[in-house]
């Protein structure tokens, strides 16, 4: 049997659709705190505890500047983001996402909770 690979555009559309679905009934943060200068911690409504290196979060920024809207290719390469990257402020946006103001001046990325769940355990590039 032949498995047809979805095109990158189609794949990205599917991912987005899944994200939207998750936004409606997926877990949300119950508590968000700074663990150390380089680490963010989130406790979720399903009791899961996640920790995130902030550099990885910056590298995973889902905004149109950082990811090619058409190919889904990351525009950020290993080494692009310095070790000194830090958030300045983290804000809830609506009931489904966090927005980060970064100390490199970047702030256009919205991190839906479902995306943050997927980034769990990921290391910086």
């Amino acid at each position, binding site marked *: 049997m032949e498995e047809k690979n979805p095109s990158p555009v189609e794949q990205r559309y599917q991912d987005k659709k899944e994200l939207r679905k998750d936004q409606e009934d997926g877990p949300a943060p*119950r508590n968000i705190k700074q663990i150390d200068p380089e680490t963010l911690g989130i406790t979720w409504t399903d009791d899961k505890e996640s920790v995130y290196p902030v550099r990885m979060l910056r590298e995973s920024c889902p905004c149109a500047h950082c990811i090619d809207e058409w190919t889904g290719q990351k525009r950020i390469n290993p080494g692009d983001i310095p070790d000194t990257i830090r958030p300045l402020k*983290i804000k809830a946006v609506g009931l489904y996402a966090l927005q980060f103001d970064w100390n490199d001046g970047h702030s256009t990325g919205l991190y839906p909770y479902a995306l943050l769940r997927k980034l769990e355990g990921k290391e910086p590039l």
Partner: protein
Amino acid sequence: MTEQEIQTSVMAALKTVMDPDLHKNIVDLGFIKNMKIEGGSVAFDVELTTPACPVKEQLKTECQDKVGAIAGVSNVSVNMTASVRSTEHSQPVLTTVKNIIAVASGKGGVGKSTVTVNLACALSLTGAKVGIMDGDIYGPSIPKMLGIPITPPKGGENNKIFPHEKYGMKVISAGFLTEEGQPLMLRGPMLGGIIQQFLQNVEWGELDYLVIDLPPGTGDVQLTLTQKAPLSGGVIVTTPQEISLIDAEKGVKMFQQVKVPVLGVVENMSWFQTDESDKKYFIFGQGGGQKLANQFDAPMLGQIPIIPKIVEAGDSGQPITITDPDSPAGLAYRSLAEKVAAQISINQFNKEDKIDSGFELAWEG
């Protein structure tokens, strides 16, 4: 199968049982308690957040069916219990009361006190511990509706007041502070003093739900009560008429102004109906309560028909929900109580779970 394996299958099966109001499975909600497995016999408690849960029986049946279908399980015993949670707040009054419900209407005479009394009775019938505060200090009618003689409440040390008790509920009213039949000749400051006493000095003991009958309208007393009492939410009573709806809108806005969640809208006197027939006569028009609920994105909690027996019951001091819980009126009030209790639980879960939408974290270092 070993008992360990059975337990794993039972939990997996129960994880597929969803609470329809809280949109989560009953295992993750922490409802399953005291699981006992002996051979093929499985017994456990399902601890709900209110004894007035509208889907209690359905949940029980679903648990029984799903666990009963597991290979190796020969016998299932599901015990439904409830532990009412408290609405969190930091106000220093009414600390032994878990949830406080204010019943408001813009206009007078729409049946607010009747709803208060029957809502409280219906909650109490489910086994919850219930109190009523007659906040209508201008025209207290709760004592009459419950048939409580006008006698001064017992006092205790430190200005404590002990509420009266009737039909298993605790009741306080400014009516008890007057001679029967005498109008309350109180001026503003004294009225404020009574409210303050009601909030601070009444020995309610442990209550699951305290229902407050607010005076009609949206004046000072209403505002004081809604600000100073740590309310879980407000219920708006209206009739289907345009004139009542306009005033009810003001009631909703009052709650919004003091950031008290609106639990929903009750439409009273929705239609006329006799006990003998199912035919409905829509005397005051149709759909008004629903329209108000839609306008504020608030739940529609119920419709109460016009039923002559409700008037008799009010006059005789024997609420219809107590004397005839299975009559159309009794059923309407009981369904209302379930909706109100469910809405309080829903609000608690939404709040206690998630960070709120205004969350901000400033990074240090």
